[in-house]
């Protein structure tokens, strides 16, 4: 699914540079049948390009926003906090729910993420079954319960 042809009708934009972690996330979503409309990008620059329909995503409908951006913090080119800062300081992209999903549970990262306006913060559980449960709850809440403009 990491191809630009599948970039329309995306419910979840997964921003994750670690291939193994991205695959685990997608496997967990397959189990909860919410995998179909996920698009995976590998760094912060590509995430902004996707949302803004620029660069490699020129031609994507810029009015179509994902219902959720699942964002890692440590990434090449542009880190997760910079992505949050960019998205939340632009009134057009501010309403898009952004949930940080990271292996860091440092209180500094948690506090700074919320200060920048992140909608939620999830520390990745270490074991796959726990991770799968967490991802399934994330997807159920953000895709089926929560409403966006």
């Amino acid at each position: 699914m990491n191809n630009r042809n599948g970039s329309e009708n995306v419910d979840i934009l997964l921003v994750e540079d670690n291939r193994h972690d991205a695959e685990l996330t997608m496997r967990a979503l397959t189990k909860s049948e919410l995998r179909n409309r996920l698009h995976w990008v590998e760094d912060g620059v590509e995430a902004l390009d996707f949302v803004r329909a620029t660069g490699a995503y020129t031609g994507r409908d810029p009015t179509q926003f994902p219902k959720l951006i699942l964002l890692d913090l440590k990434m090449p080119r542009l880190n997760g906090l910079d992505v949050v800062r960019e998205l939340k300081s632009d009134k057009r992209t501010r309403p898009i729910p952004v949930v940080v999903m990271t292996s860091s549970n440092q209180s500094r990262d948690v506090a700074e993420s919320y200060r920048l306006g992140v909608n939620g913060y999830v520390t990745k559980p270490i074991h796959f079954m726990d991770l799968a449960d967490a991802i399934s709850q994330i997807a159920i809440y953000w895709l089926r319960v929560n409403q966006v403009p």
Partner: protein
Amino acid sequence: MNDFSDVEVLLVEDNHADAEMTMRALDRANFLNKVYWVHDGVEALDFVRCTGPYASRDRTQRPKLILLDLTIPRLSGLSVLRELKSGVQTSTIPIVVLTSSDQDDDIAESYRLGVNGFVNKPVEPASFVEQVSRIGMYWLMVNQAPAI
């Protein structure tokens, strides 16, 4: 519960039937003993800021989630949201609007003011209970709220 140290969810709701249904749903998911219910916007701000009747509440204990109705007396839900999200001490507390309004203006304005989530109250009781327990599962079991 007098010292409020166990409060994880602050429920701001003036409608008794809705509040009871919300608490019943949270009870079903085993979260009931962590909910504190206030009836209007002024009391919500007093609780969070430890002022008025809550002056002796421990300021370092913050709820993991505020469930906020929009149409409440004395101070509206949007005003509460504006106050909390513009306060340095309170801006990082997760707030989810839970309302029967699904007007586009309310949704857009809530997000503009920095709400963390927005959920429509389903009319049908079984769906209502289901939605509230899903809110509880995500915000209390999965999401990490910031420390003070």
